[in-house]
């Protein structure tokens, strides 16, 4: 084995993740390799210092409120979905009512009526185009059924 192979073993040795056989082989290599011995010493110092860094445990209040905060997100997302669906339905209904009134209104000029119809036709084409694109890419997505 070369020094490069032992470098991989060095981390496992440092973190006590080696079996007896690997430990023996590595220690034999260390006895004959001053570079690896020096590098191991430096890593040991670094590990010791890094292990000394502990993170502050947040107050109990944070943990007591934790699930409540997650639950609020779940509940609010349902609220937002219902709100959005209702808003879309009401907007469509209101839009149709408005258009119907304008079309039927004799006092509104023909040019405005045509512009309105063209606007609706444009929106419909855009909507269908985007929808078709999404469906096309969804069908082509090879990973859509991948589950872990």
């Amino acid at each position, binding site marked *: 084995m070369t020094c490069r192979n032992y470098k991989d073993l060095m981390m496992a040795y440092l973190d006590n993740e080696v079996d007896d056989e690997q430990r023996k082989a590595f220690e034999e290599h260390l006895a004959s390799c001053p570079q690896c011995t020096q590098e191991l*010493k430096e890593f040991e110092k670094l590990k010791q210092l890094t292990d000394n860094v502990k993170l502050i445990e947040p107050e109990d209040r944070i943990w007591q409120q934790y699930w409540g905060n997650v639950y609020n997100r779940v509940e609010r997302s349902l609220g937002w979905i219902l709100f959005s669906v209702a808003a879309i339905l009401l907007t469509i209904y209101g839009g149709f009512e408005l258009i119907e009134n304008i079309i039927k209104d004799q006092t509104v000029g023909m040019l405005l009526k045509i512009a309105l119809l063209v606007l609706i036709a444009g929106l419909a084409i855009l909507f269908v185009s985007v929808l078709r694109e999404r469906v096309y890419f969804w069908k082509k997505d090879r990973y859509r059924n991948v589950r*872990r």
Partner: protein
Amino acid sequence: MGSFCEDETIAMWGCRSSSKEAFEAIVKRHMKDAYFIALGLVGNHEDALELSQEAFFRAYRNIKQLSSKGKFFPWFYQILRNLCFSHLRKRRLRQADSLDEFQENNIQVQAHDTFDPGVVAERNEDKDRIWKAIGQLDEKHREVIILRHFRNLSYEEISKILFCNTGTVTSRLYYARKRLKEILDREGPRLAGSQKGGR
């Protein structure tokens, strides 16, 4: 960390039929791991709390994507790390924008100034420097350091949640520590603790 225990899968089945009680049990079991991993990845308390809770919310919403034999935590970890890394990228973009503004006024901005040493217990100069240096590691190196040093996971456990083999974990740890040492050496005099000697 009880991430790989059998009863977790049983509780998970409850979640798959939208049982909030079962999901509550999972959240309470893993909230500390989630928070501390997020803290290690993003570097400050507020973002870590927000991102870890958001990850649980997304996990609940997508729990049906988890196959029946899948363990919760490795799957959840992917959601959490993606959220954290995405947050960091947005933060870097914001910093880059503000850096342009500050440079016009000749003000220096540290690239990783949001990695807050205030979250480190019993602070001293060495610990602050190490924490800041961890903040300067790239993402895949930082995550192995966090999982190994701050959550005390074995190589086997790290390999399960990173979906790689233990050889890759060993190799990443080697380069992560090497890089960490380079950053510390570059950024100032030798650390006080490192002069005390080895084993």
